[in-house]
């Protein structure tokens, strides 16, 4: 893989980690409230998959989606301002952490009712099919979402009509606090796709290079009319389900076994054992970022100074995003109604 590509992915993984840890910090300070679902540990999934997408592809995702938007290109300051509920947020403060939308980047939204991403994705896919365009739809969902009816309903329709959808399961083994063996009779999500004649595979979601290569191959196949595909990515979230969840239901040994293959560690291992500095992650060792850093260093594609520079840039970017969010004004009720009635202004209703 190209040195430049690895650098881009590593940078995005580090940005993702730094963004989320800073969001947690701002939340803890009381700068914003509500639900906050964080991504540390799973970076290789969003980065590997979205780096394989073309600008013309669509992305539909869940409520744990700050990183997906960030990697897709939504400016970090617009996401941070949205978390703060401010006027300059990507959804003008109307959506919040769980509902990021960015139409310009074909980012079709974060959905906070589990299982909603499938119908949206097949709908966008249906439009692509009707228009006969070489575009694909990426539909993210968690392992906890596969027991919703919409999973089965939508996969059935996707297969029936050969819709251009890549279903991406972020299997982090937990639906909030219920471990997969306690919520699913079949714990290999990819096997369920066989019931709908959808080809599927499971790969290591901590290894961004494999995730990226696999997704590139699948999207190419889908864009050229290959029909839907299900990709299961085995991953792990280092934090609890949300800021309200300390995650105490998970055995320490399990957390440890995954943090040692942190996707960032897989990339950035030796030098940056403790990055991005939260004690929680520092205690459990290297991660996906470390893995990629290590890989790049072994291949001679990354030197320590480059990594330091990268982190320095990212720290500045995230500081700027928080400043921007803090300075952005609160939206007013009038603005809220403006957006609500945006479609109706073009019509005479009564």
């Amino acid at each position, binding site marked *: 893989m190209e040195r430049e590509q690895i650098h881009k992915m590593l940078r995005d993984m580090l940005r993702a980690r730094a963004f989320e840890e800073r969001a947690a910090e701002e939340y803890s300070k009381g700068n914003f409230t509500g639900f906050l679902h964080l991504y540390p540990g799973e970076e290789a999934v969003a980065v590997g998959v979205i780096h394989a997408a073309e600008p013309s592809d669509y992305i539909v995702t869940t409520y744990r989606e700050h990183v997906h938007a960030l990697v897709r290109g939504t400016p970090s300051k617009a996401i941070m301002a949205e978390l703060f509920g401010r006027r300059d947020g*990507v959804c*003008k403060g109307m959506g919040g952490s769980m509902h990021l*939308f960015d139409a310009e980047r074909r980012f079709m939204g974060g959905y906070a009712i589990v299982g909603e991403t499938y119908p*949206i994705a097949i*709908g966008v896919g*249906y439009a692509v099919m009707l228009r006969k365009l070489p575009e694909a739809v990426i539909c993210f969902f968690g392992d906890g979402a596969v027991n919703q009816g919409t999973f089965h309903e939508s996969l059935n*329709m996707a297969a*029936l009509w050969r819709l251009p959808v890549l279903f991406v399961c972020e299997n982090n083994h937990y639906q909030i606090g219920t471990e997969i063996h306690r919520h699913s009779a079949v714990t290999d999500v990819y096997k369920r796709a066989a019931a709908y004649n959808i080809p599927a595979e499971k790969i290591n979601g901590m290894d961004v290079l494999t995730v990226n290569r696999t997704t590139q191959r699948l999207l190419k196949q889908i864009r050229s009319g290959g029909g839907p595909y299900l990709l299961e990515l085995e991953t792990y979230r280092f934090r609890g389900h949300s800021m309200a969840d300390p995650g105490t239901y998970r055995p320490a040994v399990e957390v440890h076994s995954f943090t040692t293959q942190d996707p960032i560690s897989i990339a950035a291992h030796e030098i940056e054992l403790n990055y991005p500095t939260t004690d929680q992650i520092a205690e459990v060792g290297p991660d996906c970022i470390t893995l990629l850093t290590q890989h790049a260093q072994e291949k001679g594609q990354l030197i320590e100074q480059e990594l330091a520079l990268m982190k320095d840039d990212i720290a500045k970017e995230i500081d700027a995003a928080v400043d921007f969010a803090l300075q952005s004004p609160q939206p007013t009720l009038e603005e809220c109604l403006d*957006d609500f009635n945006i479609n109706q202004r073009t019509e005479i209703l*009564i």
Partner: protein
Amino acid sequence: MREEKNYWQALNLALDMAMAEDSSVFILGEDVGLYGGTYRVTEGLYAKYGEERVRDTPISENSFTGLGVGAAMVGMRPVVEIMTINFALLALDAIINMAAKIPFMSGGQYTIPLVVRMPGGVAKQLAAQHSQRLEHTLMNVPGLRIAVPSTPQDAYWQLRQAINSNDPIIFLEHELLYFTKGILDSSIEPLPIHRAQVRRKGKHLTIISYSRHVLLCLQAAEQLAKQGIDAEVIDLRSLKPIDWDTCAQSLQHTHRLLVVEEDCQFAGSGAEIVTHLTERCFFELDEAPIRVAGRDIPTPFNAQLEAASIPQVADIIAAAQRFRYPS
């Protein structure tokens, strides 16, 4: 074109015209294609436009309605048919959490030009699970619009307007209206989609209703006229938004308000109509408004009890007679 049509034919023509004019319009639902629709509304369209634009779906209401939402987000104009409104309960996540909220949650970035058609109401002994009215539920959802046409003319024009609109619109069709007839003039300039219409002028009381019960109110008004009671009948045509001005203007000369709805009375559309108009027109009213509505029970299967569970012409007349009129 000006000719007599059935209500279902008017809807069929509206879909046909919309699909011919705009390639982004497509239809989906259970048995809408090859079979032609359970109430014939999509008859002939599958042969004319093909299976991609007239899509027979599996029985998966939540996901195919959600499919409509996703397609609408990227500029298509889907018309989803939910075979009967009763099955819409399975699609409420797509309707309420997705269609109604996405334009707002996205800060106005996405519009949802989606129409969801739902046949419903009390028909003929279809029993409790197939005789529902859900307007009370749907009216309470910010972001939705609701059209309730009562004539073939309105069925045609309001559906055309709904398809052209960029908002998600619920289109409620009463199952007993499909085979009613009326003049359809497709060359006129239609009323705005949510404007109420005075169907009968009168001076003693204002009867407000919508959908099939407008026809019952008109029958009641004819009989009341024979007793010297001159009723004005307003067809709301829309339950969200509601054209309050037309209602208030009527009350300025009748001073009495009677609201007739098929849906259950408790927290129903009549509750909203009476409250709003009482607040707005309190000093115009000579007496307390009266509601005539469905009983607060699931629809019985037994034919007599079924009839007794919803307002009939006699109930409307009896209610109108409860007002005191100047002699």
